[in-house]
């Protein structure tokens, strides 16, 4: 089998980000919140402070390491919520059709018409800032693509011989959807899911940047960027390192998504066997 560079690089970057998040207490040099020391304020990167320090003397490296927890939690959990909602709606709409399909279609078009970040902002405004509301806001606003894909797959799979055979053999609707349709559309859904995680990480950064994400002083990549905005000319390391972390994670997720698409595509799968 051909070496798939994007799959390998992508999963390596993603795995690295997860590892950093999991091992944060051991990797970090200092406590990201409590170890503020104004004596060390705004130190540029050095051997002592790998990524430098911020205006309160907190170690940027430690904060970036801990920030991975927030970014990845938001990315993974909110995309999971999105995938579940999107698949449930799209799959049932495509399979049943009729008025339910019209309702889901209308809802999807509505979601696509409203910029999801604006929608998430509105939800955050109602729920107030914080990790839970961030998860809810991002989890409810990004399912339209998954829904579209699931619906289109269900529509085409519905007329497949084995789905009709299952009906003839006495399978109920739910059983058909779960055993016949879902496994056959999982490939594209997973691909969309990984790409969606990337955009969720970016949305978290954007919302935190706007002050609606994780509450300070706890670090998230987005809120770190937000804090660093004023000092971008005087202390660029404050924004460069969290930005780099976001960039690498999103890049990794996108490469992973592309790579997965290549191997999960049924055509290339049949070529392998």
């Amino acid at each position, binding site marked *: 089998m051909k070496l798939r560079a994007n799959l390998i690089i992508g999963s390596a970057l993603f795995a690295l980000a997860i590892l950093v998040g999991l091992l944060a207490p051991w990797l970090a040099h200092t406590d990201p919140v409590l170890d503020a020391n104004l004596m060390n304020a705004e130190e540029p990167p050095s051997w002592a402070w790998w990524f430098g320090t911020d205006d309160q003397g907190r170690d940027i490296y430690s904060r970036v390491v801990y920030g991975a927890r927030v970014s990845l939690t938001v990315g993974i959990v909110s995309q999971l919520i999105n995938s579940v909602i999107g698949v449930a709606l799209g799959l049932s709409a495509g399979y049943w059709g009729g008025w339910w399909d019209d309702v889901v279609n209308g809802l999807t078009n509505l979601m696509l018409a409203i910029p999801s970040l604006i929608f998430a902002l509105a939800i955050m405004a109602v729920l107030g800032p914080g990790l839970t509301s961030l998860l809810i806001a991002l989890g409810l606003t990004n399912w339209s693509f998954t829904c579209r894909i699931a619906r289109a797959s269900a529509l085409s799979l519905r007329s*497949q*011989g*084995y789905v*009709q*055979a*299952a*009906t*003839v*053999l*006495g*399978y*109920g609707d739910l*059983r058909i959807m779960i*055993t*016949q349709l879902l*496994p*056959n559309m*999982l490939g594209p859904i997973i691909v969309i899911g990984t790409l969606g995680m990337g955009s969720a990480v970016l949305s978290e950064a954007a919302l935190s940047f706007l002050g609606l994400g994780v509450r300070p002083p706890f670090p998230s990549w987005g809120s770190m960027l937000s804090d660093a905005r004023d000092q971008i000319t005087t202390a660029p390391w404050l924004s460069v390192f969290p930005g780099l972390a976001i960039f690498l994670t999103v890049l990794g997720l996108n490469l992973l998504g592309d790579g997965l698409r290549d191997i999960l595509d*049924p055509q290339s799968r*049949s070529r392998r*066997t």
Partner: protein
Amino acid sequence: MTGVPLIEVEDLRIDLDDGSRRVAAAEGVSFRIDRGETFGLVGESGCGKSITALALIGLLRQPLSIGSGVIRFEGREIQRLSTTKQRELRGNRIAMIFQEPMTALNPVSPVGRQIAEMFVLHKGKSWREANQLAVEALANVRVPAPERRVKDYPHQLSGGMRQRVMIAIALACGPDLLIADEPTTALDVTVQAEIIELMRNLCAERGTAILMISHDLGLVANVCRRVAVMYAGRIVEERGSADVFRAPSHPYTQGLVASLPRLGSRAALGRTRLKEIAGVVPAITSFPDGCRFNPRCARATDICRTTAPVADLLEAGGLVRCHHHA
């Protein structure tokens, strides 16, 4: 033929609703199949044989629907049953195998699991028991090394093997009726014979009735005791299968029998042309008045163009719908 037949179709009409009007895709279809009997439904593409089968298991979907008529399974009207009750019949009491073994199996699920699912679904078995039964079911359809094959995915099996798996799935719950819709059309001729033989033997062992649907008169006559020939949505002749071959009565059936190539005949040796039926099957929206075969029939007279023939009972048994039958 005594007692309640296994399945009884009475004056079935299937409507095709194309949005602006309704036309009958099949009408006046009546037949009965007794327990353990073998019955064949023969006709060209679009004559209504497959939709008749779908109607039997309650699976007609828009734009097709049952216009009128009654279908009884063991005396109970299938249309009157609740959706849940209908679903309990399907796969459990009435099973079906399809033309395309390539597409009728779920590509992402091992075949053993697909067989086992039938036991879980209809017989309330645990997965552990069901998996065991799946191995036996595969052994019954003469799949070699069944305990290894259960883990195979459909794409790892040949067409013939896949059709065996389909038969194993269909017969898993010991149904009373097996509907076989062109079960061997997609297979090689040698494999075809094996599959037919297998299907016939298994059904005979279990007392399962077969409704076989095919365009292949020879194949159907080989498997079935009785045959109904359909043309343009109507049954034109229904006989014992030997009689159909020996002395076809309806001009259409005569045409079908005459157009079968026979080894060693003058036509097969190239000395005379193979017989054919002139003309084409009329479109579903433009069936002719009277007897629907009249534009292609050599014996057609004025009455054929105005009046649809009623079913005449034949002395030798069976019935035919023709004003001028032999």
